[in-house]
């Protein structure tokens, strides 16, 4: 199923569409959230809030704003940052965990992970460290190009293209 087939159902608030949206995207969003909010229970709270917000604000989404997935990833990131702020973290850069998304593998979930893994983690080990950092900052943490260039100490003008090269490596591996 693609976004194009799903959208009419979503906009009609068809309840099956909700199930479908959850099945398709919950894990992806949960990874993004868990990478920002390290406490597991809080991360689950944020995931729930995120889906409640998605469904309650669905009328404000339209295709000219971008991909549906992009819209919901933004909601997930913003909800995570709200959560961090509510706990007294004001400067997100200072207080975000210095870990990148690869650390999500380190917890006790390792065993359970095996089920849905398609060798991608093996691939990530081969991915250039720079790529892990750049995808982590831009996609998982939602840094601007400016912020990422400062953090990684690379010229602002190369952030976009370096990220593109990393995504190309990923796509070659996944063959998409």
């Amino acid at each position, binding site marked *: 199923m693609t976004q194009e087939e799903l959208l009419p159902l979503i906009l009609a608030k068809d309840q099956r569409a*909700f199930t479908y949206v959850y099945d398709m995207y919950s894990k992806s969003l949960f990874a993004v959230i868990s990478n920002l909010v390290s406490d597991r229970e809080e991360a689950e709270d944020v995931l729930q809030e995120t889906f409640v917000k998605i469904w309650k604000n669905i009328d404000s989404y339209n295709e000219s704003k971008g*991909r549906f997935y992009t819209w919901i990833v933004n909601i997930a990131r913003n909800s995570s940052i709200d959560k961090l702020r509510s706990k007294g973290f004001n400067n997100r850069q200072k207080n975000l965990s210095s870990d990148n998304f690869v650390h999500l593998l380190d917890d006790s979930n390792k065993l359970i992970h095996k*089920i849905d893994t398609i060798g991608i983690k093996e691939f990530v080990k081969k991915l250039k460290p720079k790529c892990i950092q750049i995808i982590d900052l831009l996609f998982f943490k939602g840094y601007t190009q400016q912020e990422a260039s400062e953090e990684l100490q690379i010229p602002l003008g190369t952030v976009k*293209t370096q990220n593109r090269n990393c995504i190309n490596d990923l796509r070659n591996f996944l063959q998409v």
Partner: protein
Amino acid sequence: MENTTYIESGTLELYVYGLLSEEENLEVSRMAKLHPEINAEILSIEKSIINLSTSFSPFLSSENFRKIKEKLELKHAKVVEMHPSNRSRYWGWAAAVLLLIAAGYQFNELQQSRSQIATTDSEKNKLQEALVASEIKGKQTQDALAVIRDKNTTVVPLGGQAVSPDSYAKVFYNKSTEVVYVDVKGLPEPPEGKVYQVWALKLNPLTPTSIGLLDSFKSDSQRIFAVSKASGAEGFGITLEPAGGSKSPTMEQLYALGKV
């Protein structure tokens, strides 16, 4: 701007990540509508990043799904919670007793039953997906049938051309609503890396306009596809193009053609 340069610039990745300004977003959506290859690129980027992040998700219990539904007061889609069987509960107790002797043993048991729940969860999700997909399929078939039956719909037979004389296809074209469906049961399966592209034609002078790529050709056994609307079309053609489609039809690979 030259499309390849546009694609190579890395802007589309930032578009999928959600890092562009509102203005830049509008520009990308506009380009994606105009150029199928840009749209295809966006879909691939999205797919890769969803795949990547999904495989890094920590274990997610179905309890979350239930709680969200509760908060939204959604009904009719009750999730059946998986309870461990009596047997595994017995094992749970046994493990608890054993804990006194060997804490390590119990940990192992717990991991195993967790992994079972996860497997069942993931199977259940797959079934749910299949159900929703088939309901959507049914709806699409009904829509297609309604269009085909409409009295304003013209049936345009497309005959096979030099490259494949036995091929044929049909276009259902509703001149008032401009909706177009194609029935391509009579076309051979496209080879790997190729895709059929449907063109609406104006005849004087001959101007083809792309109205869609049949990239789900293999997955849809009915072979009836909705494509984009066509205004004032005088003919239709179907060509075989490299994946992602082409800007203009490759005439040597014209499979079917017909006049309204």
